[in-house]
């Protein structure tokens, strides 16, 4: 009898806790983005622009891999951030290592051959700017003031800052980044999400992660919840449908806008059902969705730093 009882014992193992935070993988994050931009550019109405952004992303990858070992907050500072539930590399106040200036020059020089003539003049001016002017532009990007004089320079500045913060976030790693009390901002840098992604495989299957527009850290937020105001009610999903199709489509599009009737905002949510996606690239390839959702009266809750939206 006792042998039978033993044979019937099923060991109870705790169910795997899915990760709350996923740190960016510095070995391929921007390279994968570049590939996705190229894929999306095929037959697209903004194909030249998307191809150009593929070049920008590829140079971001090169700049990231050549990036020097920057100083991270020490153990005491990290512990303090964790204790007070503050981001360890805050976008507004982390002392920026001037190494990002070099990354910016590298990006400007490498994308110049691919740039239209209108962009070349701006790039030439950008590389001549003194460090204090670059820091001013950086401050505008980090305060998400994506408009005004020299707005055309801001996406390049943002691209270089993404390299700096992604280098920091990937070195901290998921274990070095703790969740905050506020679910709508990045636990690594406190910046806003560009979009969210519903994962398709492994222990995170079906879970939704917000993707930081600055440092590429991903953090979990339950589905059917507004990323801007935490509301659970009044959430809907809008997707593009051809006017020609009379019947409502039952297929979920790869990119939908998650709209919230509590705060009238939206953020895109991306489903990689049909292969690899990149939140930054897939976002910029679906600006038509932004335009139509804007016309419904919803405002976008997080920026894409490679786009100065104008208007």
């Amino acid at each position, binding site marked *: 009898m006792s042998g039978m009882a033993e044979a019937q014992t099923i060991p109870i193992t705790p169910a795997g806790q899915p990760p709350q935070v996923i740190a960016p993988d510095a070995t391929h994050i921007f390279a994968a983005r570049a590939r996705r931009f190229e894929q999306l550019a095929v037959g697209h109405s903004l194909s030249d622009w998307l191809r150009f952004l593929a070049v920008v992303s590829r140079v971001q990858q090169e700049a990231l891999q050549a990036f020097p070992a920057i100083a991270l907050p020490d153990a005491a500072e990290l512990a303090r951030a964790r204790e007070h539930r503050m981001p360890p590399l805050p976008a507004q106040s982390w002392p920026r290592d001037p190494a990002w200036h070099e990354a910016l020059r590298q990006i400007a020089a490498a994308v110049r051959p691919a740039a239209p003539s209108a*962009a070349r003049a*701006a790039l030439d001016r950008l590389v001549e700017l003194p460090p204090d002017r670059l820091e001013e532009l950086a401050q505008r990007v980090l305060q998400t003031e994506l408009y005004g004089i020299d707005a055309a320079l801001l996406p390049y500045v943002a691209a270089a800052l993404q390299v700096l913060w992604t280098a920091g976030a990937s070195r901290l790693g998921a274990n070095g980044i703790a969740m905050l009390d506020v679910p709508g901002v990045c636990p690594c840098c406190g910046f806003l999400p560009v979009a969210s992604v519903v994962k398709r495989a492994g222990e995170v299957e079906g879970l939704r992660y917000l993707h930081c527009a600055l440092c590429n850290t991903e953090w979990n937020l339950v589905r059917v919840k507004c990323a*801007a105001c935490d509301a*659970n009610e009044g959430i809907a999903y809008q997707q593009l449908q051809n006017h020609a199709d009379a019947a409502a489509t039952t297929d979920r599009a790869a990119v939908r806008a998650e709209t919230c009737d509590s705060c009238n905002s939206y953020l895109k949510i991306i489903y990689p059902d049909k292969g690899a996606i990149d939140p930054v690239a897939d976002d910029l390839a679906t600006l038509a969705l932004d*335009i*139509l959702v804007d016309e419904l009266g919803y405002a976008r*809750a997080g920026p894409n730093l490679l*786009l100065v*939206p104008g208007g």
Partner: protein
Amino acid sequence: MEVTRRQFFKVCAAGMGGSSVALMGFSPTNALAEVRTYKLARATETRNTCPYCSVSCGILMYSLGDKAKNAKAEIIHIEGDPDHPINRGTLCPKGAALLDFVHSPNRLRHPEVREAGSNEWKRISWDEAFSRVAKLMKEDRDANFIARNADGATVNRWLSTGFLAASASSNESGYITHKFVRSLGAVAFDNQARV
């Protein structure tokens, strides 16, 4: 700059001419024309609890429908809720077939009664149903209520009737069910279909 608790970003048709797309030297004209070939399709995802058993798996129900047109929402898909701590997105075969349950032509849509000795179900109104249930419960309770046991101790039991509530009940409806059933003296009640 407009200072708000949280800044919103406007990506709109009017802005495209001054956007970085145009500033960098790319023409947004074709893209803007293309926008008008699209309309928006609206869908919702709603959290709920599987009605079958006491495990109470979380589910996500997908429906289509444009609330502006006041069209009736139609549930098109049901899956396990990946965020739910109990089932983490999984469902058993019964739960996985919930969509057919929702759309089944055999669903009970209104109160029905099969009289003793009859083999036919007859539709009745909710008022009739409530009155009938209340009357039968009272008759049975009056006939079978046990106020004291053989030793004369007060027990206030009603053993001849049971009560079946719902497994997807919230704490609050569970509390009310308990208060109602126990105050009648009923001992047998359950909150799930045994599977």
